[in-house]
C-alpha cells in the first residue's frame, strides 16, 4: 500500500501548552481512516496543522501530490495545500452564506481552473468553456451527494444535515486525493448519519478519494473506517482496526476513565 499522507513527529505548541505531541500518522491510498479522542485531545488542531492554518512547531508532513510525488507541505499556505490535493471540511460549518448551493461548490473548483481578469471581461471561448465545465462538474458532485434538489437554494437556508453534506461537496470540487472531514455527523439524526455513512463509502469507492475523519459518533467510526487513530492530550495512544481499538485497554481508559474497582 502506498501512503498518501505521512505525518512524522508532529508537534504544535500554543505558548506553554502542547496541543500536539510527537504525533505520527499515516493514511494510505483509498483508505478510510478515523481520528478519535476525547474533547480537547488536539484532533482539530491536527487538521489545522496539516492544512496550513497553524504552523507546526516541529515535525514533518508529507503529502503524495496529484502527480504522484511525495512533497513536504509543512508551513505551506492553506490554499496551496488544497491545490496539492488535500481538502477539508470544518467542524463549525463555514459555508459561503450569501451564495447558492451550486455557487458554493463552484468556489471549490477555483483551484483547478484558471480564468483571469481578461478572461472575465472578454468572456472568450476558453473562459466560457471553463465556466461550463465548472457548472457541470459542480452539478455532478451535488448529484453524487444527492443535493441536486437544493441546487439554486441559498446555502444558509439548507437543513443542518444538508449543510454538512454541502461542505463535503465543496471540498470534493477541489479534486482532492485526501479528504479531511471534521465531525461530519455532528448534529445529524440517526437516519442522516446512516446516509452519511453510505455517502462517505461512495465517495471513496467511486472517486478513489482517501478519507481521514474526526468523529465522535462511534457507530459511524466503527462501521466505515479501516484504521482508527486514537489521540489524547495530543499524544497518540492507540492505532488499529475497529476491532482492535474496541478492546484496547489504554483507549478504554482514556474514554471511560480509570476503573476504580479493577
Amino acid at each position, binding site marked *: 500500500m502506498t501512503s498518501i499522507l505521512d505525518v512524522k513527529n508532529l508537534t504544535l505548541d500554543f505558548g506553554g501548552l502542547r496541543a500536539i505531541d510527537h504525533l505520527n500518522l499515516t493514511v494510505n491510498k483509498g483508505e478510510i481512516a478515523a481520528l478519535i479522542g476525547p474533547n480537547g485531545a488536539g484532533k482539530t488542531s491536527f487538521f489545522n496543522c496539516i492544512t496550513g492554518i497553524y504552523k507546526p512547531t516541529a515535525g514533518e508532513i508529507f503529502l503524495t501530490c496529484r502527480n504522484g510525488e511525495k512533497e513536504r507541505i509543512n508551513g505551506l499556505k492553506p490554499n496551496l495545500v488544497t491545490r496539492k490535493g488535500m481538502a477539508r471540511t470544518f467542524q463549525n460549518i463555514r459555508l459561503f452564506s450569501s451564495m447558492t448551493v451550486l455557487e458554493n461548490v463552484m*468556489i471549490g473548483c477555483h483551484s483547478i481552473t484558471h480564468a483571469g481578469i481578461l478572461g472575465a*471581461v472578454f468572456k472568450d471561448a476558453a473562459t466560457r468553456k471553463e465556466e461550463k465545465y465548472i457548472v457541470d462538474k459542480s452539478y455532478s458532485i451535488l448529484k453524487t451527494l444527492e443535493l441536486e434538489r437544493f441546487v439554486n437554494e441559498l446555502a444558509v437556508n439548507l437543513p443542518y444535515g444538508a449543510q454538512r453534506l454541502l461542505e463535503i461537496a465543496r471540498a470534493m470540487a477541489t479534486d482532492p486525493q485526501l479528504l479531511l472531514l471534521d465531525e461530519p455527523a455532528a448534529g445529524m439524526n440517526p437516519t442522516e448519519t446512516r446516509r452519511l455513512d453510505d455517502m462517505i463509502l461512495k465517495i471513496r469507492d467511486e472517486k478513489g478519494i482517501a478519507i481521514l475523519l474526526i468523529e465522535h459518533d462511534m457507530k459511524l467510526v466503527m462501521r466505515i473506517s479501516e484504521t482508527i487513530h486514537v489521540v489524547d492530550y495530543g499524544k497518540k495512544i492507540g492505532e488499529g482496526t475497529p476491532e482492535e481499538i474496541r478492546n484496547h485497554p489504554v483507549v478504554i481508559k482514556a474514554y471511560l476513565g480509570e476503573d476504580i474497582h479493577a
Partner: protein
Amino acid sequence: MNMPVLNEIKKSLIAAIWFMFLTFPIMVIKVNTITRTIDWRWKNMMYTGIGAFFLSAVWRYMLRRKEKNQNALEKEGLSIVQKILQVKTFSIPATVLLLIFAIVFPHLFSMHQTNIMISALIYVMLGLGLNIVVGLAGLLDLGYVAFFAVGAYAYALLNLHFGLGFWTVLPVGGFLGAVFGILLGYPVLRLRGDYLAIVTLGFGEIIRIILENWNEFSFGPAGIANIPKPELFGLDLSLSAKTIYLYYIIVLLVIFTVFVINRLTDSRIGRAWIALKDDEIACQAMGIDKAKTKLRAFALGATWAGMGGVVFAAKTAFINPASFTIWESVIILCTVVAGGMGSIVGVICGALLLILLPEYLRDFGQFRMITFGAVLVLMMVFRPGGMIENVRRTYQFKTGETNDIHS
C-alpha cells in the same frame, strides 16, 4: 384613541420637553452686550418644543412603518424597486431612454450643467471602482482618493514634462492607479475591518501630504495649471465643444466601467471576492489565494480611480492637493454606502444624488454638512442596505443544462 397612539404621543411630548430644556441656554437666553441686559426669548422655546414634538412623532411613525414593511418584505423577499429592475420588459426600455437622455443632455442644457454632470459622472466612476473593493471584496478602504490623485497628477505631470495627450495618459493613469493599489494592498493584506480602514486612511493622507510638500515634483499647494482638455483628431474646438466632447468621453467611460464590473461580478474572480467577504478561512481552504484575490480587488478598484483622475484633471484644467482630501474619500464611500453596497444601479444613483443635489442646492450651502449627516443617519436607520439594496445575481441552474460529466 387607542393606547399605543397615546403612548407614542406621550413619548414625543417627553422628547419635546427634554429638547426645550437642552436648548434653553442657546435658544432662550441672549445677552445684549450693549444694554447689558438679558433678552428672554420664550417664543424660541415654544418653537423648539413644537418642532421637536412633531419631528419625534414623525420619527416614531416612520420607525413603526419600517417594522411593518420589513415583515412584509421578508414575506415577499424583494422590494418594489428591485422587482422593477429585474423585469426585462421594463429595464431594457428604461436603459435605452437613459442612454438617449445621456446623449442629448449637453445639447439640451447649458455648459454649466454639462460641467456639473461631468463631475457627477466622475464620481459615478469612482463609486463603481470603490464598489469593487468595498461592496464585492468587503475591504473597507478610506484612502481611495489617493488613487484619484495619482491619476490626476499623472496626466498633469506627464503633460507638463513630456507633452503627452489625454488619450495616451488615460490608460497610463489607470495602470498607475492599479500599481498604487497593489502598493497599498500589499502591506495591508492581513488587516480587516477597522484596522484596514485606518491604514488606508493614512495612506490617502500620505499621498496628499507628499503632493503638498514635494515642491520639485508636484509644485506643492500651488498646483498645476493649464492642463489641456482632450483633443479630437487635432481639430481646434471651442471651449464648449471641448466640454461636450469630455462629457461624451466620461459617459463612455462610465458605460465601460459598468460593463467590466458586471462581467467581473459574474466571473470566477467575482465569485472568489464574494467568498472572501463571506469567510476568509473557508475561502483559503478551497484553494483561493487570499493575497492574490485581495490585491486584484485593490488594483481593479484603483484602476477606475486612476482613470477618473485623468478625466478630472482634464475637466478642471487645474489641480492641487486640496482637491484630494480625506473628505473626498468619505464622499465616495458615502455614495457607495448610501447607494447600496455591491449594487451597480444603487451606486450610480447614490453618486448622482450625492453630487448633483449639493450642486443645485448651492443656496443652502451652509446647511450642506448638517443635511449630509442627517441624510446618512436617516439612511442607516430606515434603509441600512442603501437606496437600492444589492440583490446578488446568483447563478441560476436550469435542469437539463448539463451533460453529465464524470470527473
